[in-house]
């Protein structure tokens, strides 16, 4: 079991002929992801890597291939449009890797998502994607994370940061603890799935026994997660919030990682999560150990 991504996933890749799209499409195929189509406007009829048919539009690709999920590598000027195209074609899961989408574009995308009332989910943008680690039954990687650090198991990981997710996964694997599904929700101020949306899935997933949540400064997503944990989570949650040392008013790499008007500090988020029963890793080097300790009771 896993959430969102698994052996039922039939993936199409938007921007498959670009350099990032092509590189990561190959990596995903190598990991075992079923890529059934690619989309690049004007390149319809071509074949990618000798096996994946390329289409001009997402609707054509879905009709021909039965794809049910998309991974987007389209550059920022066209990325929000690519998300809208994927949503309009009826895809259930859209993962947008692109970093640098204007926030006003994302406000429109959010509005469309709201109108779909849960019929589709967006992960990202500005995220590493989602992975359900490979087992004998196959694995599913939708995104840019290094597949080889993952092991199948029962810990769910959800994070606003890419490399910090890899760090947590690396720690888990080093301790011999596998992962059910790992989801990077992205570092932008306005995106798709929130911590709460992912926690809901992990709580309902029989195969996920504990969760690592990785937050960072900016916004109120960690506070919302804390409320959800307090009210609905029965599974252990270990958390780390990056940016205790970040100065106010400076954007720390991610567009969304900024303390504005004294709001969105790591201290506030840590206090909220702690108050909700999550255990805070004392350092980013202890994320896995903190959860494992909780799970052993």
């Amino acid at each position, binding site marked *: 079991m896993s959430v969102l991504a698994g052996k039922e996933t039939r993936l199409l890749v938007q921007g498959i002929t670009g350099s990032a799209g092509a590189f990561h499409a190959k990596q995903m195929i190598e990991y075992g992801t079923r890529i059934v189509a690619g989309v690049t406007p004007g390149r319809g009829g071509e074949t990618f890597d000798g096996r994946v048919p390329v289409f001009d539009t997402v609707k054509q690709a879905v009709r021909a291939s039965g794809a049910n999920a998309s991974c987007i590598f389209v550059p920022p000027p066209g990325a929000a449009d690519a998300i809208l195209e994927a949503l309009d074609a009826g895809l259930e899961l859209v993962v947008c890797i692109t970093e640098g989408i*204007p926030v*006003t574009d994302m406000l429109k995308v959010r509005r469309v998502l709201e109108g779909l009332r849960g019929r589709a989910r967006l992960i990202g943008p500005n995220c590493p994607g989602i992975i359900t680690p490979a087992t004998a039954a196959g694995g599913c990687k939708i995104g840019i994370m290094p597949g080889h650090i993952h092991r199948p198991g029962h810990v769910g990981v959800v994070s606003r940061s890419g490399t910090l997710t890899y760090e947590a996964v690396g720690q888990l694997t080093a301790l011999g603890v596998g992962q059910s599904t790992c989801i990077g929700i992205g570092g932008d101020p*306005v995106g798709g799935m929130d911590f709460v949306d992912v926690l809901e899935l992990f709580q309902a997933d029989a195969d996920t026994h504990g969760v690592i949540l990785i937050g*960072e400064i900016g916004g109120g997503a960690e506070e919302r997660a804390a409320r959800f944990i307090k009210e609905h989570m029965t599974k252990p949650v270990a958390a780390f919030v990056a940016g205790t040392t970040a100065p106010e008013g400076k954007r720390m790499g991610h567009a969304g990682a900024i303390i504005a008007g004294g709001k969105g500090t*790591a201290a506030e988020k840590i206090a909220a999560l702690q108050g909700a029963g999550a255990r805070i890793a004392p350092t980013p080097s202890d994320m896995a150990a903190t959860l494992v300790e909780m799970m052993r009771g």
Partner: protein
Amino acid sequence: MKIHEYQAKAIFARYGLPVPRGYLVLNVEGAAAAATRLAQETGSPVAVVKAQIHAGGRGKGGGVKVAKGGAAEVRDLAQKMLGMQLVTHQTGPGGQKVRRLYVEQGLDIGRELYLGAVIDRDRRRIAFMGSTEGGVEIEKVALEMPDKILTVHVDPTVGLAGYQSRELAFALGLGAKETLPKFVKLMAALYEVVTREDCSLCEINPLVVTRSGDVVALDAKINLDDNAEFRHPEWRELEDKDEEDPVELEAKAAGLNYVSLDGNVGCLVNGAGLAMATMDIIKHFGEKRGVAPANFLDVGGGASQEQVTKAFRMILRSPKVKAIFVNIFGGIMKCDIIANGIIAAAKELGLKVPLVVRLEGTNVELGRKILNESGLAIQAASNMADGAQKVVSAVAA
């Protein structure tokens, strides 16, 4: 990206949003000439001299002065203000040097209000906030008198609706027959500014009602969404390099994310989250021993060897750096590229401080081999905590 008040007001004016008449000046003569010109145009000798820096709270720091004595007084004020280090709660203790002044017509002010637009991340909407407490920091109002702020959220598919502007108008006491249509028109213009110019923040504090009943933006603050730069080539002209940290500018040009901090350990990390976490862990182990991060530096997920070299060079050049921590969890980023980049920079500039390297990920064995055979004095770390402890010891020892 931040821009100056005079630039924000020029944008406002382009959208028909009322602003006082004013001129940008760079020297004392220019200031006096602007005052003379304003007096001719407005028929009033009252002018305001405003320091143009990218920080709020200028008035309290002495960066905004009213001159009632015409050009001579404006000249005196400009003399004092140009070149001064203006200290506000947003500049830090060193202040910011004043290089540009805006000389503006004085208005006969009846009331001062607050009007602002932000991206409300939690509601995923553009939010307009109005308050009768103008001229005060809105954060302070939000904290102490939250009921004094009225917020409306805009549906992006509908745009700002007329009723929303009216709600704000009545809350601000602008419902009178002569002010209501003026305010509604101003709101429509402001919404166009925010959406078309890709503002991440747009604040008018204060918005004033003059004694003649006009509604005017007396101040203007705009932050632009960096992500939208690709569709605004005109932004390049709005950039004021004097207002930026030179090292941060250099980093930006090299495609790196860099933020200067006060500590003594230079950090080179891939990924924004890991870079912040690296700062945090250095502070965790180093706080009691006087060790702290000197910078935030994210070389990104797919940095080239040249970018790594540039990044390392920037760290090496900083005199406050007493040791360096390289923390790489290379997913797609190859460890040998990082290793070669470090060596190139270290050989060029000489490595005079301890260097701790934690490498993980693709081609890690090759990366470690390259570093081992480089002849550089490098301490290898087995994980993040080990690296942080080693670098703290290296500085504190």
